[in-house]
């Protein structure tokens, strides 16, 4: 979330789409309700189903699953056509005025300029700003104190990737035909209400009403009101998921809603600590704090830094903080925390110890590799591998080929019992060689540590009860595995033992490191005395650092995750704070826990002020420029250079090298285009109306094994299916809890009344849903909450499946469930940016079972 849960109460307008917070975040949903009750905020819900959220919405639109970009593109078009935009914000805080290079082409035919049909990738060199003068090395402003200059390129090495021009040509009149604003207009002029209706199935009048309602916050140029966009995995789980979220961000930039209390683009996290997992590198292509992981072209530390440290890229009269110019400080401090004294300047801060990621290692890819026999074993902790990924049968078959599987769980789950999943006979079991180890883990209430919530708060929690019986904390299990591995390396050597042998492991109890030790390590400390030049204050060696501005690239600081620096300082664990004072009334609660970065509750909050540093809405003022003190002050922590005067025109989006928000994402930012374009889901019952010859995302990731099958309407797969969770259940866990089972005893398939009538299905009867990959059986819930849709004149049905069925659980064990996983149906197709599978919107066939 750019903002936070509580901040939603400050909004005037909500677009909830690609998420069902009432269902999946009922506790957080109190804030949307509060906004409705206290501010008369309006709530627009767009979803394939009439959801629990829709039940309390002011306006509900039923959309065809996967048509989100068409809808949001239509919204952008509506805002532009009707001038419901924040002009001053747009010109000064976004790249609307930036001029794009000649040769850049919009995807009228479904493809941006630079597409390579053979490799199915883009050459993105035209996706760039027009620069004045020659391009400079990208790391022009990067802090390289004492660094040796990058070595000259080896002759065989490819030319350096194109970089952003330091000096961007721009036109604040927004009239230049190649400026971002004009391209944007041109791109989305195609997304007319008529087109929106034909693609999404939302009648154009209803669409206009919703668009009018949402953009009404900028009616007549008023800047006081604020709108928020709230989403969850209903957006991410598409083969163009990242672009949907981009479209939302663009709409919010157009309306000037980002950085403001009650505004923002707000991702609702579906698990209690999923934000924390991504913060500490739950993704293969990043290191903790979203530092980009090294790849094989990074020959040494400097080359890596050169590649990942951006130089600022801005109009010459503007300023850009370009905070990522500090990347080397974060990277060195990270390596110091990993390898301690073994990371020295001489050995390039132990850069060689870091794995170099040569290609994609995303979830679906890992299992494909295992299915291809390349991955021999897996540690499955804190998840149910077989159940959570797409195409469960492929995962099960992959596990059959593995040598070993370690599952740490609190229940017997589908993964540890993959070898007796439905369809496997006793004889078959004998032929499965996989050695399965089931380790008794501890439940969330049995552990301490932090949860990072959607609002980026690091909240410490205390263990409520000790783990029962032989159950162990995760860190105790992992520590013992690590210590054993290290012992083996010590005894037997190996190809490259150094990263293992030199890993810092300074724990009071090496067999069971305490999470407070780890939290302090993640925050970071001074290795030798460090002095802050402006304030002339010093942190002594060994002291916990108060924030990431103290990090150094000379080895004098250590920090496991730079964005968390400041969470456990000399003042103690700020994550354990429980202060309930809220002096501003904006729900900031500055002394409750700690939110990254630097306890800021709303990101980019400089954008909540006009060019002169005055809040757009004085009633919801978050930060402001104090001319007398020459300083930014605020009720929230200013997300800005504290002494940058408004006249310097420093952009509020300090993490971008441009300093401004990106309507147009240049270069490698997005794999599939600088602007979002509507593509059909990989399995779709209709052709792409904009460009039938380029139906789906041109750079979509798909797989080619014999288990990776994709269906078409011609094969009889004509019904759109989407999957989701229920309030009453939590993934595949709660089917073991009688309380949850009581509330929803059996899984079901939600079927429109009309489709059920066509097929002669009555509520409560068993139905069979099949895709090209598998079959799911459950009872029919015949409902009016999903209506048949008309897509470009064609009748299209959608059905929905809650994901909570498995083959272990109270009802499953009692023989009252069909023991089919919802993900037996879903396809191994992923978004090319985030590698998230397309769980929302694939094709199935529906029959009576």
């Amino acid at each position, binding site marked *: 979330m750019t903002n936070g849960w509580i901040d939603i109460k400050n909004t005037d307008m909500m677009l909830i789409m690609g998420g069902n917070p*009432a*269902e999946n975040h*009922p*506790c957080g*949903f*109190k804030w949307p*309700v*509060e906004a*409705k*009750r206290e501010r*008369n905020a309006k709530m627009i819900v767009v979803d394939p189903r*009439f959801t*629990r*959220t*829709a*039940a*309390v919405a*002011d306006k*509900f639109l039923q959309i065809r699953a996967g048509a989100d970009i068409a809808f949001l593109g239509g919204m952008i078009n509506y805002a532009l056509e009707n001038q419901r935009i924040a002009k001053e914000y747009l010109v000064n805080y976004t790249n609307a005025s930036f001029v794009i290079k000649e040769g850049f082409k919009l995807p009228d035919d479904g493809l941006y300029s630079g597409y390579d049909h053979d490799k199915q990738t883009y050459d993105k060199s035209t996706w760039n700003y027009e620069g004045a003068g020659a391009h400079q090395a990208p790391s022009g402003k990067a802090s390289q104190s004492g660094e040796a200059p990058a070595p000259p390129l080896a002759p065989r090495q490819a030319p350096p990737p194109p970089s952003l021009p330091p000096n961007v040509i721009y036109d604040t009149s927004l009239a230049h035909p190649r400026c971002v604003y004009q391209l944007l207009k041109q791109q989305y002029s195609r997304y007319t209400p008529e087109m929106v209706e034909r693609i999404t199935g939302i009648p154009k009048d209803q669409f206009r009403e919703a668009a009018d309602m949402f953009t009404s916050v900028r009616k007549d140029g008023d800047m006081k009101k604020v709108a928020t966009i709230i989403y969850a995995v209903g957006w991410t789980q598409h083969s163009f998921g990242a672009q949907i979220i981009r479209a939302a961000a663009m709409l919010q930039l157009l309306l000037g809603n980002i950085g403001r209390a009650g505004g923002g683009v707000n991702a609702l996290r579906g698990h209690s600590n999923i934000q924390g997992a991504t913060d500490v590198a739950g993704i293969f292509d990043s290191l903790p704090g979203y530092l980009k992981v090294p790849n094989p072209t990074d020959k040494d530390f400097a080359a890596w830094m050169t590649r990942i440290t951006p130089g600022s890229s801005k109009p010459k009269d503007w300023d850009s903080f370009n905070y990522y110019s500090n990347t080397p400080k974060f990277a060195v401090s990270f390596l110091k925390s990993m390898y301690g004294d073994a990371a020295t300047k001489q050995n390039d801060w132990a850069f060689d110890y870091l794995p170099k990621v040569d290609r994609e290692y995303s979830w679906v890819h890992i299992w494909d590799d295992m299915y291809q026999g390349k991955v021999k074993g897996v540690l499955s902790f804190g998840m149910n591998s077989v159940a959570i990924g797409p195409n469960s049968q492929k995962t099960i078959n992959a596990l059959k080929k593995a040598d070993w599987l370690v599952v740490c769980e609190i229940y017997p789950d589908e993964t540890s019992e993959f070898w007796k999943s439905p369809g496997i006979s006793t004889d078959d079991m004998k032929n499965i060689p996989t050695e399965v180890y089931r380790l008794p883990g501890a439940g969330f209430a049995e552990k301490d540590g932090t949860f990072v919530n959607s609002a980026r708060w690091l909240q410490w929690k205390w263990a409520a009860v000790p783990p029962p019986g032989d159950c162990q904390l995760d860190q105790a299990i992992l520590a013992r595995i690590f210590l054993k591995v290290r012992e083996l390396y010590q005894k037997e050597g190996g190809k490259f033992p150094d990263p293992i042998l030199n890993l810092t492991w300074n724990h009071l109890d090496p067999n069971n490191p305490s999470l407070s030790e780890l939290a302090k390590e993640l925050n970071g400390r001074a290795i030798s005395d460090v002095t802050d030049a402006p304030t002339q204050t010093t942190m002594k060696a060994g002291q916990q650092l108060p924030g990431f501005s103290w990090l150094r690239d000379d080895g004098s600081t250590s920090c496991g995750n730079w964005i968390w620096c400041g969470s456990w300082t000399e003042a103690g664990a700020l994550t354990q704070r429980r202060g309930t004072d809220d002096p501003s009334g904006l729900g900031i609660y500055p002394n409750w826990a700690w939110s990254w970065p630097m306890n800021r509750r709303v990101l980019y909050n400089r954008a909540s002020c006009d060019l002169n540093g005055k809040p757009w809405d004085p009633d919801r003022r978050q930060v402001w420029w104090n001319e007398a003190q020459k300083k930014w002050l605020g009720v929230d922590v200013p997300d800005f250079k504290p002494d940058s005067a408004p006249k310097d025109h420093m952009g509020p989006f300090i993490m971008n090298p441009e300093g401004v928000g990106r309507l147009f994402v240049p270069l490698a930012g997005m794999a599939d285009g600088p602007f979002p374009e509507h593509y059909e889901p990989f399995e779709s019952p209709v052709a792409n109306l904009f460009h039938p010859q380029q139906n789906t995302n041109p750079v979509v990731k798909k797989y080619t094994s014999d288990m990776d099958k994709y269906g078409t309407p011609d094969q009889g797969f004509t019904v759109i299916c989407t999957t989701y969770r229920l*309030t*009453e259940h939590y993934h595949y866990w709660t089917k073991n809890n*009688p*309380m949850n*089972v*009581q*509330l*929803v*005893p*059996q899984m*079901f398939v939600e079927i429109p009344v009309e489709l059920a009538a066509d097929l002669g299905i009555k*509520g*409560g009867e068993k139905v069979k849903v099949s895709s090209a990959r598998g079959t799911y059986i459950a*009872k*029919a*819930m*015949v*409902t*009016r*909450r999903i*209506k048949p849709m008309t897509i470009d004149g064609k009748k299209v049905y959608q059905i929905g499946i809650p994901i909570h069925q498995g083959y272990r659980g109270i009802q499953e064990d009692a023989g009252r469930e069909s023991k089919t996983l919802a993900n037996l149906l879903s396809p191994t197709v992923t978004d090319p940016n985030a590698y998230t599978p397309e769980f929302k919107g694939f094709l199935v066939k529906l029959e009576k079972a």
Partner: protein
Amino acid sequence: MSNGTLEIKAISGHAGPVAGRDTSRDYDVCKLIDVTTCIGCKACEVACLEWNGYPFRETVFDNTYQTMPDLAWNYYNLIRFNEHVAEDGTFSWLMRKDGCMHCADPGCLLACPADGAIVQYANGIVDFNQDNCIGCQYCVTGCPFNIPKFNHETKKVHKCTLCSDRVGAGLEPACIKACPTGCLHFGSKDDMKDLADKRVKQLHEHTSHKSAGVYDPPGVGGTHVIYVLHDIDHPQYYGGLPKDPRVPLLVRIWKGPLKWLGNFAIAAGVIAAATHFVRYGPKKVEEPKKEEVV
């Protein structure tokens, strides 16, 4: 009872007045259910079960999100899910937390013959005391909301207590505590009415729910559980909420005139017989012949 919070002002099946009859408290308690902000998450259902210590039960899928078709003796709190299509085609998914309404004029208490099986506290809570319950289920008959439920094994009737134990100790009911969206409120009846009226005004002025209203039915003297409904004209859409609930007329006749008439008739009959005896005495047997009596 020393605790004023739970002072009793009415007792079922009780001869004579009740100690707390004329007590007036500064405020009655009241639960406000703002149906327009209910998301049907069922937290209240679970909180209710857990507070009352009832076991989780086996339920059966029934083509709905609703946990089960009806309340049960050990399930006081059920969200009723209803799909409703208005005449103009507008669809709504209505979720209403169903449970005892704690009527000011409780039909259950009126109908109950068992001394002390049902009490009404001065704060408005209507509570069942199973120790005194005789299992006749007249309360079921007296209730216009279909709330009390019978346990076949113990032959006792149960219903929501409005957490009289918690309220007596100065806490809010368990469902209120668990509600995540603030759809449930608890406080004095005046405050809740006020809050409900404000919400209704807001719904009228700022939303499309022009017929929103407060459900505090006067037919039962008002209730200590009140609803804000989107459509006050059609409470029946919300899973059978009666439009104008009243203690059934026949129950009123039964417990009112008929009872007194019957009492009078019985007493009069007995008195008449006695009077007759005094006036006329026993009938004599004619003795036709002396010799016949030996």
